[in-house]
């Protein structure tokens, strides 16, 4: 069966050990996590985990059910195929010799990036958007030489509350 990428939004109790229950479930059962981000929601007793995972329909069904089985998991929504907004942020430290500086700034502008740190030989550019947009910027920066990247992993919310 074909593997597909799925974006899950998981509401959990904001308690110590909950994240390790979830990552433990994934490692123990051999599921994969492509990205993960966690933060408190409006209700401080609840956290939202946004996760990108990959698997066949049978595996995704299991992931959903297994997550729901954890006592600290309140709700699992598979946003894949629904209407949602997703954002991810990346800090990209790119080589910036003087002859390339103008070009790098131009690319950054086109993607509404922001230079957050400047060195003699580098820029650190902040970009945000969906995963494709960040990948596009990375591709364009590649020829200059990317020194380091820090990416947040996606966060997402459904467009309408059902």
């Amino acid at each position: 069966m074909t593997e597909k990428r799925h974006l899950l939004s998981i509401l959990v109790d904001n308690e110590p050990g909950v994240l390790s229950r979830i990552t433990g479930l994934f490692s123990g059962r051999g599921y994969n996590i492509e990205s993960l981000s966690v933060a408190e929601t409006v209700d401080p007793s609840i956290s939202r985990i946004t996760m990108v995972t990959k698997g066949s329909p049978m595996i995704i069904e299991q992931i959903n059910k297994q997550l729901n089985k954890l006592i600290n998991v309140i709700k699992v929504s598979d946003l894949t195929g629904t209407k949602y907004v997703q954002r991810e942020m990346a800090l990209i430290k790119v080589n910036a010799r003087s002859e390339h500086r103008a070009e790098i700034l131009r690319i950054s502008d086109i993607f509404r990036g922001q230079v957050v740190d400047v060195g003699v030989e580098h820029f650190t550019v902040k970009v945000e958007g969906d995963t494709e947009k960040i990948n596009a910027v990375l591709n364009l920066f590649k020829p200059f030489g990317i020194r380091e990247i820090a990416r947040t992993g996606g966060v997402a919310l459904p467009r309408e509350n059902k």
Partner: protein
Amino acid sequence: MELKGAHILLKMLQEEGVDTVFGYPGGAVIDIYDALMEAGDINHILVRHEQGAIHAADGYARASGKVGVCLVTSGPGATNTVTGIASAYMDSIPVVIFTGQVPTALIGNDAFQEVDIVGITRPCTKHNYLVKDVRQLARTIKEAFHIARSGRPGPVLVDLPKDVINATAQFKVPGEVRLKSYNPTYKPNIKQLNKVVDLIQKAKKPVIFSGGGVSLSHGHHELTELARKAQIPVTSSLMGLGGFPGTDSLWLGMLGMHGTFRANMAVSECDLLISAGVRFDDRVTGKVDEFAPHAKIVQIDIDPTSIQKNIPVHVPVVGDCKISLSQLNSLLDKEDLSGVEDQRKSWLDQIEQWKETTPLAYKQGDVIKPQYVIETLYDLTKGDAIIATEVGQNQMWAAQYYHLKEPGHFITSGGLGAMGFGLPAAIGAQAGAPGVLVVDIAGDGSIQMNIQELATAVQYKLPVKVVILNNGFLGMVRQWQELFYERRYSSTKFVHTPDFVKLAEAYGATGLRASKPEEVSAVLAEGIKCEGPVIMDFIVEPEESVYPMVPAGAPIKKMLLV
């Protein structure tokens, strides 16, 4: 009322109806043990190893239908329970484990006898807790019992730091547990059940496959009613034994790797497989792609993760087995089933033929056959004993030759297959079912893994009877070596074994031995009659194998026969 943590714990145990605790003391729980001295209505059974405590709590839970409770100290006390917790988790047995922990201020410092038992047991408990504040203690215990016994049952561990046990708090019995994220589905979807009714009426060759979930939900009467009403033969997993009467003409015997010929054939040929409370373990399915290849598959289970985990299912039914089967029966009552006997005749005839041509069989010669010991035990006890087993060939022969009448009467480490389970589990079962004959069917290897618990049995006058099928081998592994490794018996023959009769006597129990077939019946009769715990050592055929056998990963139709 202002109470110390230790007293809150005991109050809550009483509140939950706990009268028996299996445990072992140590520094981190010394205050709880101190408080226990005054708790007259709680019977504490001092085991000889913490693994014994958790297996005993497991056996107690299975035999009594109540939650088993175990209490151990921090560090090594806690880690010694891990095998038993994993076993209870695999078999969905409701137990609550209380572990001592170093004081909260020392947690994380690698303090003396500190282990992160909550971290260690996260993947093998239904849920677990570290109680950091004595004010949370009562509610946490209430939740632990609720989670252990509801939905798909399982072990819940509560870790108790020493300072929490000694701190005081205002005690009030907590109200009903409501967890926003935990709400098991008991009632099945009626639309799904209607589909099952429809399938039953169309089926020419149906089979019911029942598992531990039927016993756990006490759905055995409903299962029997369904089978008889719709004339559907029944097979079960190892965990499901006892859920359907082993003497009924519709009984097929166990399914899977060591299942009967007729059960494996029937499932391979059936056009409808109604499964209830099973999780399609690989020991049952063999090669998944060729499991029940012609059948529409119905799966009833309270745990949605069990459904469609290993095999594709046509009609999933999420719900409690007892409730689902009972509603299915009511729906069937509205249908005209008058022609069902005729409709099933050729299918049941076919099954009868499989039974006649290829029954479970062995030949009793000059040396005692292990199967003969179990058959004789069955004849003598008329199927009324609670049977605990160890792991290996002994377990499979017990499953094949002891025909069970009721659930809770076959106590075995099914999912984990933990050697050393049987004796402590039998002790727990005896504590949970006083007056009932409890027999541990054991191998000479497994029994040595928790033999120390014989002292517990003697001390508390729990008169369990241990039947050792002494083949001088780690028999099940030897069997694999014989069949698949050209008889290269690497580390499976015991060069030295203790004298089990003398060992029994050393522990203050009775020891008996049979070396010839004609002694078997008398030894069993005498052992059963004895008042206290007994070890019966049966010197059996060393290289007897369990048949039928489906080689691992083969289709269940491809059985090796005697």
